[in-house]
Structures are given as structure tokens and as C-alpha cells.
């Protein structure tokens, strides 16, 4: 463990300060992703069950009013499901750009080294080159790691919201005095 931490810290040293930003972004990104999955797996079923029970025992008699209130509930549910998906996407888009920033910083360092020592010192240039390439790789890796889950989350939240709307709309059928066709949403 300590070995791995040491390796990571030396890696960050080699890559320059931008790697710290990428690390922070990675932590934030994965915090949001894990929080979303937690919500989808644990919290959302409870909330949905509570909402469904509430609607099955509804005392509303006006079908129009009931449908409007249900629309509001579904919208709130959708919002909660979607949550920070947009923020996740933003962070994923930021990662390669941060990597690019690190690359540019590293290239500037390479040029400074060239200015001092000329082209005859490949060892001095090498540190700048690794500083230029490592952030790009890190940004790409972090973005790639998050990309699949962000799309999966967006898809799942939309899917669950539609399903919830469907299920809830069926509870409206038990309301007496329903004469018209029941639609979802």
C-alpha cells in the first residue's frame, strides 16, 4: 500500500502540478458517480415504493387534478434521478482539457530547458517531455473511466423515470369516475 502510494506520488511529481487538479477532478467525478449509483440502487426503490403506496391509497377523486399532481411527482422523481449527471458529464469533458493544459505546461518547460542547455542534453529534456505526456494520459484515463458510467447513469435515470411514470399512472385507474384514456406522463 505504501509502495503504491509512493509510486503514485512520484508519478504526480513527474507529471507536474496539473496532475493534482486531475486527481481532484477524478475524486469529484467518482464521488458523484458512486453517489448516483448508490441512489439508484438503494434510495430510489424506497422512495418509489413510498410514492407508489401513497398513490395507491390516494383520496383524490378528481381525475384531472390527480393526473397533474402525479405529473409533478414524476417530474420531481426524474429530477432526483438525473441529479448530477450533467455535472458528471462536465467533469468528464474537463479531464482531457486539463491533460492538455499539463501538456502545454510541460512543453513550455521543455523549451525553457532547450533555451538553457541546447539540444545536447536529452536527459534534461526528458523530464519536460514526461511532464508533457503524463497529464494527457492521466486526463484521458480519468475521462475514459467515467465516460461509460455517466452514459449508463443518464440512460438508467431516464429509463427509471419512464417506468415510474408508467407504474404510477396505473394507480390512477383505481380512482373512481375515470372515464378517459390514461396516458403516462
Amino acid at each position, binding site marked *: 500500500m505504501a509502495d*503504491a502510494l509512493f509510486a*503514485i506520488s512520484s508519478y504526480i511529481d513527474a507529471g507536474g502540478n496539473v496532475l493534482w487538479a486531475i486527481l481532484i477532478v*477524478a475524486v469529484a467525478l*467518482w*464521488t458523484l458517480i458512486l453517489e448516483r449509483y*448508490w441512489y439508484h440502487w438503494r434510495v430510489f426503490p424506497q422512495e418509489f415504493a413510498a410514492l407508489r403506496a401513497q398513490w395507491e391509497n390516494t383520496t383524490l377523486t378528481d381525475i384531472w387534478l390527480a393526473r397533474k399532481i402525479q405529473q409533478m411527482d414524476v417530474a420531481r422523481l426524474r429530477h432526483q434521478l438525473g441529479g448530477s449527471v450533467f455535472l458528471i458529464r462536465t467533469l468528464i469533458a474537463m479531464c482531457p482539457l486539463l491533460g492538455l493544459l499539463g501538456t502545454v505546461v510541460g512543453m513550455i518547460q521543455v523549451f525553457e530547458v532547450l533555451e538553457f542547455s541546447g539540444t545536447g542534453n536529452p536527459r534534461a529534456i526528458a523530464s519536460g517531455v514526461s511532464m508533457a505526456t503524463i497529464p494527457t494520459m492521466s486526463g484521458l484515463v480519468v475521462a475514459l473511466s467515467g465516460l461509460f458510467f455517466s452514459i449508463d447513469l443518464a440512460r438508467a435515470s431516464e429509463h427509471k423515470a419512464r417506468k415510474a411514470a408508467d407504474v404510477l399512472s396505473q394507480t390512477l385507474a383505481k380512482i373512481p369516475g375515470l372515464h378517459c384514456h390514461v396516458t403516462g406522463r
Partner: protein
Amino acid sequence: MTNALVRHSTAFGCASLVALGLFWMMTSMVNRDAGNLNAERQRMVMNFIRIDDVPPPIPERKRKPPKPPEQEPLPQLEAVSTPAPQMNAPRTPQMNLSRPHFSPNLAMAGLPTMASGMMAYSQPLTPVSQVPPMYPRRALMDGTTGWVKLAFVITEDGNVRDVRVIEASPRRGIFDHEASRALSRWKFHPQKIDGHTVAAHATITINFNLER
């Protein structure tokens, strides 16, 4: 609300682990062989240097003194009169040219020359050793004759230096170079004053004649 807070903080903890794992993965991607290198470094290396206990003593060699070469009396050789070799060498084609003849005009010696601090050479200007100048090839072909008057300095050890052409005939300088080259190799008796040798000025005229 507290529920969401717990959720976020737990997720944050897990996310830190995930991010560290990602970075560790990147590290291992970059230094793929680092572990192998360390293992390579720590592996025992067999040492194949053979160390003998005691080197055997080097036997001393006795050197025999070389025998003195035997002095054999040289055999007395009979004097035999050898006949003169009859040479049948092919006659090389020869140019029908006259022999170059040089006669340094020694009458010019001893003339007072330059008025610098150096004294003039007072002895008869007879060279100790003399390098004959080559007759220039063009002059030989054209049949040109002439003379060169040279001023020079006889140094303390009898050498010649500072050779200058004063006058020459013909003026085109056909003989100048050859004359000064030859003269600079000549040797003279150095000028002596009270037992000391000093440098002295002298002038010489070298004639280039073609013998008929």
C-alpha cells in the same frame, strides 16, 4: 438531508480509493518494467572471478653471460688486379649544351658596404664550404649569361644570412633566386676581432657563364 450527506461522504471515500486506483494503474502503465527492474537488481549475481590462494613463486632465471666473440684473424687477401669493366651502357641522348660555369668574383670582397653598425668583412672572401648554384633551366636553354651581386652577413659561426640582391644582370631576376639560395648555404671563416668572432657584412658577385 443527512441521508444525502452520508451518501455523499461515503461516496467520496470510495471515490478517493477509485481515483488512487486509477492513478496507480496509470503509474503501472507508465513504468511497466519497474518491478522487474528491481527484481533484476536484487537478484544474486554469480561471481566468476577465480582467486588462487598463493601465486606460485616465479623461478629465478640465471642469465649466462654472453661469450665474447672470438677474434679470428682476418685472412690475408691476395691482391688481384681486376680488369677494368667493359661497360656497354647505352648512350643516353645528351643535349648539346655547354657546361655551366660559376666563378665567384672574389675581387669584390672586402668592399665597404653598408654603413650600419656591423663591420665589413676584412678577410679574403673564400668560402669554407661552397654549394654550387644550379644554372637555371630556362637560362640554360636560352643561353643567357649574367651575374648577380649579393650583399649578405657572415654570422659569428660562419654561416650566411640576410642575403639581399643588390644588382643583377639581366635584371629580370633569372639568376637571383638561385644565387641567393646557393649563397645562403655557403660557409665562411667568421670575422675575428681580438679573438672574438663577430658578424660582418660582405658583398659577392656570382657570375653565371656558359663555357663554350
